[in-house]
Structure formats: C-alpha cells, structure tokens
C-alpha cells in the first residue's frame, strides 16, 4: 500500500527496528505501520545498508569446509523444505503479522466490551513488557478522556479516529507518553480498529509472590 500518512515512527525507532534491537511489542507496532507506509519501508531498507556494510567490512572468520558440505547435504537430502506459500487468511487489509497473531493464537482473541462504544481484544505476543491489544471504536463513538500510566503506541488498522490534536487514518502511528491526556472519537462513517501496545505497570512482586523492595532498582533482562 502506498498511502501517504502523517504520523510516522521516529527515526530512532526505525533504526532500532532495522538493527533488530527494538522490543517485540514495539516492533509489532512499527511493522504494522510499515504495512501501510511505503516511505518508511524504503527508509528501513536504506537503514539496513548500515548493518549490511558494517558486516561487509568486518574481518572475516575462517569457516571450516565441513560447514559448506553440511549445507549442501541438507539441501540435497531435501531436509530443506521449499517455502510453502500459504493462502492469505485473516482480515483483508490488516498487516500479516497481526492476522497471524489473531489466527495462529492458541486461543482466539475475544472482543470484550469496555464501554458503550468501545471493545478490546487482547493479543498474546509472548512478552510481558507491553499489553498488546486491538481496540474497536464504533462509528461516531466517544471514549472517556484518559491519561497514560506508561508509554502507549497506537496504529490505526481500519477506519479513522480523531482527538483534540488531529485526525488519524489507516496506518498512522501515534505515541502517547504519561501525562498526555486525550479523548479519542471514532469517525462518523464507520468503525475504527486500532492496534495498541501499552506499557504494562511494573510488577513489584518476585516470582514467589513476595513484594520486592520498591527502592531496589530492577533491571529486567
């Protein structure tokens, strides 16, 4: 898709995405934005060259001949499966990885009503730093004004919504920091579905359930 969008991830996020150092939840949001944004896709492709050229000028390490033979043996023995092109499933227009999260999940995400005009479906992503979910706002729906306890990333997947600052359409990438108060409203002409990753509140309990000293600095690996 080649929509022209107004709200993009920062360069730092694209760099970390290109280097593969961005955490899983944030990467899901960036990848979803890339699905809609050709110009950021090309930016990431340019950034990939930095890693590629750094690799190209590093000092080569000797590789034993046996490794080449092993690779050829695996290719010959057909241990190497040709990649299967699976028919696309899921919601048309959605990023593939979101459809994968929805349809390959052990348990299908379930829409739960949050308010008269809003529903939420949590996605299982194998990490606990952020809560990743889909939010659905019905056409013309209003949501309660709210603050954020941690950083929150939002990507519009379908339709559009607006708040005091702007109108956000499919693919737009929005960052909210703690203290940003806003009141999103669904567009009048149809429902809006957004992907969001919300920084989870820090749990101050040990695996055994004891309270940890909150003054202790916790450095999660």
């Amino acid at each position, binding site marked *: 898709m*080649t929509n*022209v969008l107004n709200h*993009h991830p920062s*360069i*730092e996020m694209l*760099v*970390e*995405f290109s*280097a*593969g*150092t*961005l*955490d*899983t939840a944030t*990467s899901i949001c960036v*990848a979803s934005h*890339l*699905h809609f944004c*050709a*110009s950021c*896709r*090309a*930016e990431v*492709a*340019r*950034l*990939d*060259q*930095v*890693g*590629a*050229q*750094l*690799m*190209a*000028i*590093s000092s*080569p*390490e*000797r*590789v*034993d001949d046996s*490794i*080449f033979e092993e*690779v*050829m043996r*695996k*290719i010959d023995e057909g241990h*190497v499966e040709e*990649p299967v092109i699976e028919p696309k499933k899921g919601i048309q227009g959605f990023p*593939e*990885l979101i459809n*994968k*999260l929805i349809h*390959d999940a*052990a348990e299908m995400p379930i829409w739960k009503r949050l308010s008269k005009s809003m529903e939420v479906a949590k996605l*299982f*992503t*194998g990490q606990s730093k952020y809560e990743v979910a889909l939010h659905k706002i019905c056409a013309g729906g209003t949501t309660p004004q709210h603050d954020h306890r941690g950083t929150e990333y939002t990507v519009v997947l379908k339709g559009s919504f607006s708040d005091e600052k702007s109108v956000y359409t499919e693919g737009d990438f929005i960052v909210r920091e703690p203290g940003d108060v806003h009141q999103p409203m669904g567009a009048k002409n149809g429902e809006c579905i957004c992907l969001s990753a919300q920084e989870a509140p820090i749990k101050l309990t040990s695996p055994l359930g004891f309270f940890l000293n909150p003054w202790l600095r916790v450095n999660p*690996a």
Partner: protein
Amino acid sequence: MKNQRAIVKKEQPNTPKVAVLKSTEKRNDLWSTLLVEVGSTQDRRAFAQLFEHFAPLLKSFAQASRQDGWFPGLAEDLVQEVMIKVWQKAGGYDPRKASATTWIYTVARNCRIDMLRRKCNTQHLPLENEDFWHEPDEETPVSLFRQKKTEEQVRKSLGQLPREQDEILRKVYLEGKSHAEASNELGLPLGTVKSRVRLGLQKLQILVSPEFREELIND
C-alpha cells in the same frame, strides 16, 4: 502546504529536492549477479561462490553479538541457517531494491534474533522475526529506494566516521544493543546516544527527510 511547495518549486526550478536522490543503483556487482543466478537457475557454482564470500562475514557477524542468549555454537549454526535460507529464498530477491550484501544481511539479522530468542525464552513465541519483515516490497515503488549515495559510497563514508559515531553504530547493528543498553554500557545519556546515531546516519546520507519522501511516492 501543497501550494507552498509548488511555489518553492517555481522559484527554484533548477534545484528540485529529488534530484539529490539520484541513485537507484544498477546492481551489477558480482554478488548481486550471483544471487540472481541462484534464484533463477539454482546455480550451484554461483551458490558456492556466495558461500565462500559471505559465510566468513556471517560468522563474524554472529560472533559480534553481545545479546542475551549467546552460545558457543551460534556462529556455525547461523552460517548454516542463513545460507540455507539464501538458497531457498533467492528467487524472491529483487536487485533493484537491495544489493545482495544488504539482502543477505537482513536474512542474517532475522535468523540471529530468532536463534537468540529461542535460547533464552521459555515462553512460547507466536512470531518469528521474519514475520516482522513480511510486508511485500513489491508494492513499494522503486523510486522510493533512491538514495543520495551508492552503497559503495556508504561503505567508504563508514570508514571516515568519527570514532564515537562509528562505535555507537557498531554497538547497535553488530552487537545488537538497543539505544538504552548502549547508553548504559557507555555511561552516556540516552539523548547523546540518539544524537550520535543520528549524526552518523546524516554523515552516511542514509536518511531521507519526510518532506521529500512524499514527492518520491508521487514520482
């Protein structure tokens, strides 16, 4: 906004911004040619040549990793896994959009992350790193891949970066450190890390500012 831009263009007809981005490189370097051959005819000799060149670089890339989950056999495993993927996926390689070096690097980056994650994660992971790069590039206009410098020039400029910018880019891309981890390790404020990364990228002329990204789409 649109009107403003039109006026700027009229006043400076000889300096359109896009002209700076002239390079949509013709990939006729040896490696890209070989990779196309592997993709189109499963040419084993071409594959062997690619292996000879890239396997030692891939091993070096694997050993540079300082991420959690690193294990002693990682380098050899990565070389195997990446080269098998190169064989499998070469058919999808488009030389207009990336050089063989960049394309193989992205395969290696994805493999490395997956191998490390598998090692240090007990949770079931629903996504592989490749899933994050699934978006079909066929839909991206080739004009968008234009850049100010050819890859050869990017490589040369890398050698001329100030030490602290070179150091930070290596930490991020080769060691696989996040900006936050790099800031911890180097004892530098996060803002300094970010600005060094940005300065480095500006010197390499990698970044294309949003104003004329839009023009490239409509090109």
